[in-house]
């Protein structure tokens, strides 16, 4: 009897081998290991490990919004609705939401696309956000996190049966889990380089170059872009978005606009404008022909509810028969997590002035905004003062993505160890300073450049400690190579 393991090993789809193991996850695991060692009393040059490698505000010590958690708790355990300890608007919201759940329970399945009332709320939110541009509930699918909707949308496209595999233009640097999802489905990444010297701008010439280079070896069908950018912190202005839309229109590409950081714009000179709004305002023929999928989530912004898993995709100009197939495909998940849907409803319809919860709610958001602005300022100040490190202005999102100007001898040493230089830097940083960051290679970067990614959605105190450790380590590291 032949061991099954051996035969499976040979035959596991080659596509799966091609997904790169996440270096960031490996580092985070090592960080957890070191934490365990510290708890067991092992002596290190630091008393704890700080992990800023995840795009996770709660992990960074920022608190959930009180109103959100009160509503979810009341929906989970409706006996709370009889107590006077919860504000009346919490109770009303919870009662309304429970009224939309089958059997009055958040434990019941919902409609495939989401609880209809919540889908409507989301469409109204989108329309308000976009200055009145119409948003139709039937074009919206709520999923357990935007990652799930990204994967489902990719599934609609990506095929390997045709002689030319489906290609998707992806930015460099990018959100790595999109790239992984694309690889896993058998799609081809077509990289277009963002312009680091100019704040990580998108350049249409570069899009064109990438696309034409790709046409030889795959069938490019879509263009993926994050705005505000992960990890770059870039925020596109209207002209930039128009340029991308025009390019997609000319070259017949489906646009995938990942806008999960839309609530995180720190630069007073920048504004978030949605791809949908710009598309609409460009008028026909663009507005009625360019195919667009826009993604948003409860994981980022002020909510930071990554673990709750709530997000949505809105389609624009999607072929109706494809929409039917999309519905069937999404229905195999049955539905999105109900707690995620509830949280999304609060995102779409938060407390308003006059509501009992509004003062605390708005105060918590204001405090978070101030923290982020202060963090951005502080990070740029500290990194700006470090020799051998530089960072483009962080206009939005929740990361710093500084470039490491590593001396050639450091690069050589990393290569000798068989490790990518920024992975090596990050590993040393973790082991010596107890600080866990994400290596730049995870996101893609120009050949010969090196970066690290830190999440700056954290308390100001924590950020100070992060920057202290980073500075001390970086200076010590530099001094070893001169």
């Amino acid at each position: 009897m032949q061991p099954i393991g051996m035969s499976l090993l040979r035959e596991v789809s080659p596509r799966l081998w091609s997904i790169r193991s996440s270096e960031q996850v490996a580092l985070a695991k090592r960080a957890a290991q070191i934490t365990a060692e510290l708890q067991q009393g092992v002596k290190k040059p630091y008393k704890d490990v700080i992990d800023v490698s995840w795009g996770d505000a709660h992990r960074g010590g920022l608190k959930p919004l009180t109103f959100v958690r009160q509503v979810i708790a009341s929906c989970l355990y409706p006996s709370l609705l009889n107590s006077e300890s919860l504000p009346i608007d919490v109770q009303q919201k919870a009662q309304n939401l429970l009224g939309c759940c089958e059997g009055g329970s958040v434990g019941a399945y919902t409609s495939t696309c989401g609880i209809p009332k919540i889908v409507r709320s989301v469409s109204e939110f989108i329309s308000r956000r976009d200055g009145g541009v119409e948003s139709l509930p039937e074009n919206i699918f709520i999923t357990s996190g935007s990652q799930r909707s990204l994967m489902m949308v990719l599934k609609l496209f990506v095929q390997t049966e045709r002689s030319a595999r489906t290609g998707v233009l992806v930015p460099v640097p990018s959100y790595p889990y999109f790239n992984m999802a694309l690889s896993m489905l058998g799609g081809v990444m077509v990289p277009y380089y963002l312009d680091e010297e100019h704040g990580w701008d998108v350049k249409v010439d570069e899009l064109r170059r990438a696309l034409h280079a790709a046409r030889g070896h795959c069938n490019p069908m879509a263009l993926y872009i994050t705005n505000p950018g992960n990890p770059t912190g870039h925020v596109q202005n209207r002209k930039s978005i128009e340029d991308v839309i025009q390019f997609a229109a000319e070259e017949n590409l489906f646009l995938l606009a990942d806008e999960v950081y839309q609530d995180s714009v720190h630069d007073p000179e920048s504004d978030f404008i949605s791809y949908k709004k710009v598309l609409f305002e460009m008028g026909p023929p663009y507005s009625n022909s360019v195919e667009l999928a826009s993604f948003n989530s409860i994981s980022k912004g002020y909510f930071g509810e990554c673990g709750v898993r709530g997000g949505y995709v809105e389609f624009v100009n999607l072929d109706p028969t494809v929409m039917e197939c999309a519905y069937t495909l999404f229905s195999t998940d049955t539905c999105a997590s109900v707690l995620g849907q509830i949280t999304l409803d609060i995102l779409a319809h938060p407390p308003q002035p006059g509501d009992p919860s509004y003062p605390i709610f708005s105060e918590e958001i204001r405090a978070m905004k101030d923290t982020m602005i202060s963090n951005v300022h502080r990070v740029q100040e500290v990194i700006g003062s470090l020799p051998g490190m530089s960072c483009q202005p962080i206009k939005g999102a929740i990361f710093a993505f500084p470039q490491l100007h590593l001396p050639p001898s450091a690069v050589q040493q990393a290569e000798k160890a068989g490790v990518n230089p920024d992975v090596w830097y990050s590993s040393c940083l973790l082991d010596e300073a107890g600080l866990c960051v994400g290596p730049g290679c995870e996101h893609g970067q120009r050949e010969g450049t090196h970066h690290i990614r830190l999440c700056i959605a954290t308390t100001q105190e924590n950020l100070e400690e992060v920057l202290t450790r980073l500075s001390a380590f970086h200076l010590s590291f530099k001094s070893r190579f001169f």
Partner: protein
Amino acid sequence: MTENGILHPERVLTLDTMNPNVKRVEYAVRGPIVQRAAQIEKELKEGVKKPFTEVIRANIGDCHAMGQRPITFLRQVLALCTYPELLEDNKFPEDAKSRARRILQACGGGSIGSYSMSQGIELIRQDVARYIERRDGIPSNPDNIFLSAGASDGISTMLKILVSGEGSTRTGVMISIPQYPLYSAALADLGAVQINYYLDEANNWGMDVSELRRALAEAKKHCAPRALCVINPGNPTGQVQSRKCIEEVIRFAAEENLFLMADEVYQDNVYAEGCKFHSFKKVLFEMGPKYSEKVELASFHSTSKCYMGECGFRGGYMELINLDPSVKAQLIKMVSVRLCPPVAGQALLDIVMNPPQPEEPSYPTYKKERTAVLDDLAEKAKMTEEIFNKVPGISCNPVQGAMYAFPRIELPQKAIEAAKEKGQVPDMFYCMRLLEEKGICLVPGSGFGQREGTFHFRMTILPPTEKLKVVLEKVKEFHLDFTAQYS
């Protein structure tokens, strides 16, 4: 753009250019009949007159939707995890609070809003392992446990990793007919070959190894069979496999080098006298090292069924036995792409794995609620079988477990022809008529698979007892009328 400055007339994404596998995906549980039911509900709300005042949704295994109450303790701990300020509230029992604190300590930043590792929170995987050990008396390694967003997530993931090859070496996966259509949908999506093995209706929907052999031999001619999926207790059939049968299936899988997928989400839903849930893992290990060291097995469980019925949380896990370490490494990469399962679902699973013990304050209520749910289901299972079997033209196997009845219906030839004229398969035609005339939403057997020339429907046993009696009565009336109309 064309020379006139007009954009390309053709869309990028059309039926022709999209992934052809997605076109083949069907999912009857949410299919056309359910969509029609939703439409009818809308019409009723708008005041349209119908022969009924409400649509009774007996199509989906959703307990809470049909009025089953959540288990108090589970919801208390979840509320405490969500809004930790409640830990100061003396209305919550101490055993709920201690569990909440323990779970929160294992979450990043002490919040269920933080991402967890993609394999699931380690503490919870350890608790799952201990639960499995208590259940089976066999050691369980937390590293072989993967938490998932419902069992469906785990099942799709494992199928993905199993499917490879092209043409005659394309992976074939054996699935029961009838089956829960997630399997057929996932196989269509993956472009894998579906290998049907028929459950034996004459024998309480039991599995028969000779039928497995037949199906496999046939399949080997055109694909590379690699896995065998079993649902126990069964969906839609409700059969609870005997220990002997499970041993035979394991032996067969061992001989034929097949990866075993054991979908055990209904493991607490066992009602019939003489029936008992035996986990595939337990039986495998009790068969000794010749099998337990070789046979590869993935067992799936979920928080959506049993006595919890918490479908909306998307909580679940899979336990992997004898998976090749390199394949496991690929699996770890794959699950990381979906980030992490909902943390509230993970927390819920943890409480199910660590329920109140006899010495704890919440135990009496917990035990009472749990027993009430399972006893209620058992009673309804029996009632459903009895009532259906009294209707001429309907015959229903005992509902030994799970949450569904899957009776066989005799359809007159004229009805079959009428269906054909309408372009519908006969049992869809029947169910659509039942929906339009009585407002009862069931799923036609064709959505699950059945032997050629036979017709069935799947009905849940979840409506409250009094309502269920009404449903059964209406189905009986409809069946007699329908049969009379087409004779």
